């Protein structure tokens, strides 16, 4: 993966891009390049979206490759299908870049089998906060379309507004819309699998990609700036124990952030296990130290423990924040921490399947700055 991408195929848009992408997928099925497609689809009530594994082509027309919300992290969908084995079907999985990267992380963690999966991503404009959307889906749809038209992100989730990897390619095929000529889009191959598919579909990689690349470069640089600033202000707001406690003061310990997190893959979370259940005396003792003990206790322990466990693989997808009943800016906090911990190892989670997880590898000479000078 990650071969230099200087050439790509170009596909003409007939009436609208969504249809054309779906059409591209249908061709894939027609030519039996893949037997099924994993792609978001509006739920019957029309108030949200869900991933659907489609075998019956006629269903494709109702799919939407770029839904306005992320109710389920695509990586979880992929692992649900392949954790117990690759199966017989070849499946094209249409995922956002952060979902693709989470999938790559899960693969490193043995939670998916990508052999029969083709990962297809796209330039991502971000998504709307889920809770707002479900309250008024119609409004949400409209808002989302407008934002795309205008190329604005102010109505997107905060964590999307500061995402500098919204076009990062780590799957097999990437749908590039940025910098494409009017009524066209790029189909960028990022792997041999990808190349194979393009050739089978007889789409040749002639167009060169400078346009797309420079556009992506600008956007991610701009977003990176925003991100750094956002993190700076956030740090001043939540930095220090008191601020941190305050930030999590309303946490009700529902562990939703953990359960929707794509890279929290444990069947039984350490923080739900017996290891965190103590005799009554312990709680009483702790209460007596300070006069009173907030219940449920160990909120911060849980959050920090989670940072310890998954910040190296965090893809800043924002699921946690979407799912938090108390609107705690979990995703922003975690994206801040993740950037720093991943920097330590010059690691970007999900960037490349060949990159080993920092915790399962080491260099003999590294992290001197962490060691005691003396």
């Amino acid at each position, binding site marked *: 993966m990650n071969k230099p991408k200087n050439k790509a195929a170009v596909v003409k848009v007939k009436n609208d891009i969504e249809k054309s992408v779906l059409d591209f997928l249908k061709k894939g099925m027609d030519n039996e390049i893949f037997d099924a497609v*994993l792609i978001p*689809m509006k*739920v*019957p*009530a029309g*108030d*949200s979206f*869900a*991933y*659907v*594994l*489609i*075998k*019956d082509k*006629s*269903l494709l027309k109702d799919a939407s490759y770029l839904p306005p919300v992320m*109710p*389920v992290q695509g990586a*979880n*969908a992929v692992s*649900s*299908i392949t954790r*117990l*084995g690759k*199966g*017989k*079907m070849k499946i094209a999985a249409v995922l956002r870049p952060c979902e693709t990267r989470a999938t790559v992380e899960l693969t490193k963690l043995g939670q998916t089998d990508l052999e029969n999966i083709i990962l297809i991503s796209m330039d991502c404009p971000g998504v709307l906060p*889920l*809770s707002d959307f*479900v309250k008024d889906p119609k409004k949400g749809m409209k808002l989302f379309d407008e934002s795309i038209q205008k190329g604005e992100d102010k109505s997107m989730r905060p964590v999307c507004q500061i995402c500098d990897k919204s076009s990062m390619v780590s799957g097999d095929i990437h749908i590039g819309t940025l910098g494409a000529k009017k009524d066209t889009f790029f189909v960028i191959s990022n792997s041999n699998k990808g190349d194979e598919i393009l050739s089978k579909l007889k789409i040749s990689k002639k167009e060169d990609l400078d346009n797309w690349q420079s556009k992506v470069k600008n956007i991610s640089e701009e977003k990176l700036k925003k991100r750094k600033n956002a993190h700076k202000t956030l740090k001043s707001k939540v930095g220090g124990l008191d601020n941190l406690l305050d930030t999590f*003061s*309303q946490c*009700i*310990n*529902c562990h939703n952030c953990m*359960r*929707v997190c794509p890279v929290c893959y444990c*069947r*039984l979370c350490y923080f739900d*296990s*017996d290891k965190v*259940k*103590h*005799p*009554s*005396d312990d*709680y*009483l003792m702790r*209460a*007596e130290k300070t*006069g*009173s*003990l*907030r*219940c*449920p206790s160990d909120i911060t322990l849980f959050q920090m423990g989670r940072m310890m466990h998954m910040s190296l693989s965090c893809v800043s997808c924002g699921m946690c924040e*979407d*799912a938090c*009943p*108390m609107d705690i800016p979990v995703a922003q906090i975690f994206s801040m921490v993740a950037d720093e911990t991943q920097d330590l190892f010059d690691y970007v989670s999900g960037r490349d399947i060949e990159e080993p997880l920092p915790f399962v590898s080491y260099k003999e000479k590294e992290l001197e700055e962490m060691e005691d000078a003396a």
Partner: protein
Amino acid sequence: MTKAIVINKTADQGLTEVLKFLLENNRVKGVFTLKKINKEGDVSYSLITNADDLKDSVPFYPLMPVNAAKILSRFTLKGPSNVPIVAVLKPCELRAFIELVKREQGSLENLFFISSTCAGVFPLEMAKERSIGKNLSKYFEKIKKLEILDDLRPVCRSCEEFVPYNADMTVKLIGENIDKKSIIFLNTKKAEKLVEGIKLDVSEKDLDKKTLDNFKSKRAEEKKKIFADIDNKTNGIDGLIDLFGRCIGCHACREACPICYCKLCEFDSSDCEYKPSNYEIELRKRGGLRVPPGTVYYHLGRLDHVSISCVGCGACEDVCPVDIPLSAIFKKIGESVQKVFDYIPGRAPKEDLPITTFEKEELKEFEE
């Protein structure tokens, strides 16, 4: 008639005074109640051991951040408390705790329970927006007039079990001048002994049954509406798919549910993982399948597991990120299941769970 402590203060202040007495005179070693925890005035349950910290306690703050039964269970899971603790709970929380104790998930030993006639609580949403504070006066105005405040959670507005079971003390919180007088009934000998020697006037009183019945009938009205509404929505498999379609599978409802006490939920276990071949079969049948699958199955299964003990506390709905009307569904089905066994969850600790016992002659209507 029951002995009752009468204090010319608001219910909150009145009870706090009693709690203070209990801590200072070492009648109990800890007080478990709601407490303001920061300058923003966020409220959370706390285990208070130092009488001074009681100044921030707000026992009857109309909010249920979590169902307290879960915390008490965590507290006594590994064995009963070694020292006396008094816990201030809402009636539904107390009932939930009894259900947990029946399942060996906690112990009643060394615990004293104070509850109240419960006027209901605001949705968690409002705590998030920090808008409860400014609604407090409205809350008490309404309840003095025995009216039902629309901003309250639907499950509270329709709750008919607002008089606690198994409480050692019950605080009057429904009816006139609750803002001037706090009346604390001593329901048990235990309670009388606990407050022995308190410098407050104790007199014989009664919960005004007529007032409560009147209030109950209003709640019953609300319930009719809410049940009718959910009944229209729960319409066969398509109705279910519409209701639960937007479920994101976070299972927060289960995590918040006091009756869901399992270490690892059946629905997170490998039993519920689809093998590749299962996907193939389902696709052959349906042409497509939601992934991860099992949304409807999860909710049906949870209904099967908890309906018998559901106390209708509404915690599930409070935490649902996509506002599925869970509490109405679970309350309605819970009640109809419980009716079959003439069972009220949490009514009596000695009452067997219907699923752990049976009558030889029963349920004929279900056989053929």
